[in-house]
């Protein structure tokens, strides 16, 4: 078992999906332990892959394994796995988080209907996600890309008895589909220019200047459209908060840690193309910045725990895109990894709260839960500190690096804007923690019935909590070497341009200051956690508050566009169909036939001489016509 057999990681959950989907309901415990077993096996196999990968050494990277897929005429399509440091990071993140979420789900989903189906789709999702990060060609990327989208759709709409859940599932699917069409167009454009789907060959040809500049820019922008849709960047961000209708462990796995970072992953994978097409990186940066700031503001006024976390996820994805836009895929992948750990921890923590308070996720009715749920509270605090960027939690190191990268790259403006987004992040994270876990409980009844979650739920929290504390340290070259890597994570990923990690005290100080401003600002406003305080804040500037609560009217705008534009257009099309196509075309031709038959039937007199006359005149007519035509 080595890196050449990496496809096994995905094949095992895929097989388990088939097994669980067909027979899950007949198995004891509905087969949940089989799901954990399959993903656990992938998790263990990952370390074999990692060991082999490190063993063969950087001179043999990437490790590629391909087979013939299909031959169409002279066109040979190959499919295969492509394992390089970026893939290794993704494989590690996906298998780790998926395993934790699977274990957590056993506790969280207990007694839910369609229990086996939930675990089956989780398997399918993990398989598709692992295929996605290992794919060596864009066609495979697109296939698994759609497959994870389908899993997301199925799991958001898991409680399909609830209308809001089905609506959210549809919204997620359609919104990402808009981007996916762009991705597909981009893939076709790249294939047309290069004649291959293989990612590395496309990059080589682009770097050799074989693709026209404008052409490359346009196709890269189409691909990026797909990345924006999947990673919920403005203006496609609207689906992710609604996706919180799904079961909370799903939000942790799919809508925080793995699937939504597929856009970041694909952009990182294709970053050489973005670099060749000058201007593309600037677009990536601007999209990331706008998303980080807007969603940071939107998160301020949310009162639903999961919605706050959803907006923060979108914001953090924006941070990753800013890192990519600065030309630093290593930092983006680093932040992706740390974010996956602390955000899945936060989501699982909120899941623990929701399940303990009998499906209560409104902050206005929670509070003071730390005393009741010490393990959840403590691990949640670790996640919040990491999200805010407090040293030495994981989020600090990666966020610090992103700020550093933007400062070097843009020379100022992006750095300032991103710092503002970071302050917002720290602010709403603190608000979230204070209003959920501290102060006096706002709803006594909810509070009294709350209890700490069972071990099967707290264990993943503790494991992810530990990762949240230590994962950021892999930035240090010493730590990386001690673990057997050729250096810290940036050196590991950025092999072509090894950069030594410097701990910049000034920047770290600024970064800590940024987190501090946000945290203390929120603490000053919300400390004590009374409803009056938050109500007073809302009344301080009602116009601004409305703007934030309504999420900058993005949803209202889309709704209006759909109502006026799409429905208006559909109305015209329906009118055309009804009156022109149906009434005039279909019914009209039938009526003409019927009416002319009604008129012409009187020719049928029943008198033989009339018919004889008809025949005679016909013959004469034909004879005359023949003479005229012949001349």
């Amino acid at each position, binding site marked *: 078992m080595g890196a050449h057999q990496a496809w096994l990681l995905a094949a095992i959950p895929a097989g388990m999906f088939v097994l669980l989907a067909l027979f899950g309901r007949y198995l004891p415990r509905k087969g949940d332990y089989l799901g954990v077993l399959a993903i656990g096996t992938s998790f263990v196999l990952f370390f074999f892959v990692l060991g082999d990968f490190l063993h063969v050494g950087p001179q043999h990277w990437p490790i590629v394994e391909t087979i013939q897929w299909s031959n169409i005429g002279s066109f040979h399509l190959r499919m295969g796995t492509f394992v390089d440091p970026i893939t290794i990071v993704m494989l590690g993140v996906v298998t780790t988080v998926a395993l934790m979420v699977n274990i957590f789900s056993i506790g969280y989903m207990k007694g839910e209907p369609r229990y086996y189906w939930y675990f089956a789709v989780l398997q399918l999702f993990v398989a598709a996600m692992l295929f996605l990060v290992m794919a060596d060609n864009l066609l495979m990327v697109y296939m698994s890309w759609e497959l994870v989208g389908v899993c997301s759709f199925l799991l958001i709409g898991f409680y399909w008895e609830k209308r809001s859940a089905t609506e959210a599932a549809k919204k997620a699917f359609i919104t990402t589909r808009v981007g996916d069409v762009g991705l597909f167009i981009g893939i076709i454009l790249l294939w047309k220019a290069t004649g291959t789907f293989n990612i590395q060959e496309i990059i080589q040809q682009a770097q050799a200047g074989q693709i026209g500049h404008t052409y490359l820019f346009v196709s890269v922008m189409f691909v990026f459209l797909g990345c924006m849709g999947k990673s919920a960047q403005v203006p496609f961000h609207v689906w992710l908060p609604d996706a919180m209708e799904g079961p909370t462990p799903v939000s942790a796995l799919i809508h925080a840690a793995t699937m939504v970072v597929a856009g970041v992953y694909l952009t990182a994978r294709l970053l050489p193309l973005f670099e060749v097409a000058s201007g593309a990186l600037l677009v990536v940066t601007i999209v990331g910045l706008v998303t980080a700031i807007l969603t940071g503001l939107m998160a301020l006024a949310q009162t639903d725990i999961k919605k706050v976390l959803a907006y923060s996820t979108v914001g953090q994805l924006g941070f990753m895109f800013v890192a990519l836009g600065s030309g630093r895929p290593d930092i983006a992948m680093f932040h992706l990894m740390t974010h996956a750990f602390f955000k899945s921890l936060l989501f699982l923590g909120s899941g623990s709260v929701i399940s303990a308070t009998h499906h209560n996720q409104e902050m206005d009715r929670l509070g003071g839960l730390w005393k009741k749920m010490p393990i959840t509270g403590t691990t949640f605090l670790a996640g919040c500190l990491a999200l805010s960027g407090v040293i030495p939690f994981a989020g600090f190191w990666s966020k610090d690096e992103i700020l550093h990268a933007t400062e070097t790259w843009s020379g100022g403006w992006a750095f300032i804007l991103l710092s503002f987004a970071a302050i917002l992040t720290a602010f709403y994270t603190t608000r979230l923690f204070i209003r959920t876990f501290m102060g006096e409980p706002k709803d006594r009844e909810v509070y009294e019935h709350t209890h700490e979650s069972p071990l099967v739920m707290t264990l993943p929290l503790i494991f992810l909590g530990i990762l949240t504390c230590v994962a950021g340290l892999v930035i240090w070259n010493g730590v990386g070497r001690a673990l057997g890597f050729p250096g810290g994570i940036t050196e590991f990923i950025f092999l072509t341009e090894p950069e030594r990690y410097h701990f910049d005290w000034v920047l770290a100080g600024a970064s800590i200051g940024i987190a501090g401003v946000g945290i203390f600002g929120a603490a000053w406003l919300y400390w004590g956690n009374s409803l009056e305080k938050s109500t007073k804040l809302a009344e301080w500037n009602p116009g601004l508050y409305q703007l934030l609560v309504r999420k900058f009217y993005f949803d209202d705008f889309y709704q209006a566009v759909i109502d006026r534009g799409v429905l208006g257009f559909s109305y015209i099309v329906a009118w055309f169909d009804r009156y022109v196509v149906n009434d005039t075309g279909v019914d009209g031709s039938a009526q003409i036939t019927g009416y002319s038959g009604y008129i012409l*039937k*009187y020719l*049928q*007199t*029943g*008198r*033989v*001489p009339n018919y*004889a*006359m008809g025949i*005679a005149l016909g013959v004469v007519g034909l004879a005359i016509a023949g003479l005229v035509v012949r001349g």
Partner: protein
Amino acid sequence: MVPLSNYLVLSAIIFSLGAYGVLARRNAVLILMSVELMLNAVSLNFIAFAAYLDPTKVTGAIFAIFVITVAAAEVGLALAIVIRLFRNRATSNVDEAATLKW
């Protein structure tokens, strides 16, 4: 030798007489007789062309024999119909047998 045109003119005259009879007469038996005239005009044409174009071949004559055969069958059938018509309606006027219409 009589030129071909004479036969054709004679044939045309007989055909026109037959056509006039079919169109103008109302008595079913007379219409049938007129139809026979037309058929015979056609047969005459066949024979004339056959003799003039290639006397060694008998194509036209065979056609004429076929026409006579068909005419005989047709008359047999048609007269039976006329008899049935007369039995039912007590008339052989075709104008009065006009129920098969719109």
